[in-house]
């Protein structure tokens, strides 16, 4: 088949593992929304003694990469401790899938975010979260590392597209080194807003382009 997906991706897309909901789940997350495209729900059952993920299920309202990544992260996370599962990166999921086309990274990152958010949800529910950190340039930069550059399949920070970050009084300003009419400008704009806006002390996100 002349598709840009590996056989493993196609296999997981066709027969996704661990699909569905967990009744009385210990934690749950929903990343993305129907309004902005793909959406992933992750459900966790955690063994309180060992802090290991006893069961994990996912649901996807998304494209092939999103479904396949959701499937693979459930396999990677099952049986792991929360700390181990937290460190599962998009890169590891993509490698386990035999690679993903660069342009498809944004759909698949969502599934990895879903896993992290579910773990965070568990930690919040069980009083395992540390103090709220105020948003700084470093915090924003860290978040931008989760926004993919669809041309490269790597994040915006690593591909040096982030020209400037400014944080002042609830307003975050990000300058991206691309022309405003670039093929992916609208997509990148939306993804940045989605990642930065939920920060507890951020009121406004402004994304600017260099030309």
């Amino acid at each position, binding site marked *: *088949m002349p*598709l840009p997906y590996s056989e493993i991706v196609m296999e997981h*897309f*066709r027969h*996704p593992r661990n*699909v*569905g909901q967990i009744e009385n789940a210990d934690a749950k997350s*929903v990343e993305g929304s*129907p*309004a*902005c*495209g*793909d*959406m*992933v*729900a992750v459900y966790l059952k955690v063994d309180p003694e060992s802090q290991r993920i006893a069961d994990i299920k996912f*649901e*996807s*309202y*998304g*494209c*092939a*990469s*999103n*479904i396949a990544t959701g499937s693979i992260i459930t396999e990677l996370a099952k049986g792991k401790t929360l700390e181990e599962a937290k460190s599962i990166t998009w890169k590891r999921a993509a490698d386990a899938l035999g690679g993903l086309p660069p*342009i*498809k990274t*944004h*759909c698949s990152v969502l599934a990895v975010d879903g896993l992290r958010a579910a773990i965070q949800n568990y930690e919040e529910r069980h009083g395992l979260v540390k103090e709220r950190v105020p948003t700084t340039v470093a915090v924003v930069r860290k978040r931008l590392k989760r926004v993919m550059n*669809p041309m490269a399949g790597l994040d915006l920070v690593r591909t040096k597209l982030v020209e400037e970050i400014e944080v002042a009084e609830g307003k975050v300003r990000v300058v991206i080194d691309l022309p405003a*009419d670039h*093929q*992916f400008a*609208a*997509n990148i704009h939306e993804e940045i807003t989605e990642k930065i806006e939920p920060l507890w002390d951020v009121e406004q996100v402004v994304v600017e382009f260099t030309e």
Partner: protein
Amino acid sequence: MFENVVYFDNGAATRLDERVLEAMKPYFFDLYAVATSQFGYSLGVDARDALDDARAQIAAALGASPEEFVFTSGSTESSNLALKGVALALGEEKGRHIITSPIEDFPVLYSARALEKQGFRVTDVRVDDTGRVDLDHLRESITPGTILVSIQAANQEIGTLQDVTAIGTICREKGVLFHTDATHSFPRVPLDVREVPVDLVTISAHTIHGPKGIGGLYVREGPALSKAGGTPIRKWMDGGFQEFGLRPGVENIPGAVGFARAVELITPEETARLQGMRDRLIERLLEIPHTRLNGHPVQRLPQNGNVSFRFVEGEALLLHLDMRGFAVSTGSACFSRSLEASHVMLGIGGDHERAHGSVRFTLGRFNEEEDVGAVVEAVADVVAELRRISPLGKE
């Protein structure tokens, strides 16, 4: 390898009809010369005759004269030529305002955006939720500085037909040129320039089982640069004096001959057959729960069906259908090259969700009646499977 594919993406490209290829063949191997003037060598004169015949035939299908029809490389070039050519001709003397719709195909959409950067003002005329242009808003939007209205005859995704006669009449009353992109309607939906007040029409061969790389632009009374009283449009490619001086370059004679033959092969009977299939397709797709039709229920292309399935994403659906041997298209962002949801779906007031699960089926000559039943069955199956794994729509 692809012989078992049931192809429902004829809005993107069509299979060439063998009869078109047969008509083209001599112009590759025997009459391959450039079209020379009547004083040239015989090979070139014969090539010229073939080009003239093709031009006359296509022009006639529009109710136009041969000197009103210019060959181009396809609809992208035609629409670029129409918008930028008129802007070049009238931008200085008449004004710098253009009106278009938010659901135009990319050549018009991005030509307008390019002109905006050059200081032109572009107004998007309102469309309703079926994609039909608000005629009152159009009338109100025309100002003394308006030089061109560019509104498509039929939409590429949702198939909605515009009332080009009403639009043209308004433009004529106000003394503004009217361009329409008829790539998807010509010649299945008749457009006769003797009845419709239109000045420029974009058409293409690739949507009608003709070759890719050939299209054309109807220019009322011909371009003004070659004829007094013609349409003010300026060339923006420099070279020879082909195509009435408007479009230089060695003529694509095999393409022109193929285009003319393709036009000839489209019959009202065939179009009626496709429309019947379309109606059955839409009716059966809408039997799938949580499904809605996109576009106008009646004023729509005879070969276009477009529906949105809630709770599922289009690219996933498309891939599953591909594995089962069906080719369709979707307005989902995941499928687009810019990762943006279809501007048409958003332009008619749809949200991302509606675009996300939208699927376009475009029929063509080589689709059979039984393909309709087969694709509906496959779609129903895949939608059910994707809904099973979706976090939405469980209640």
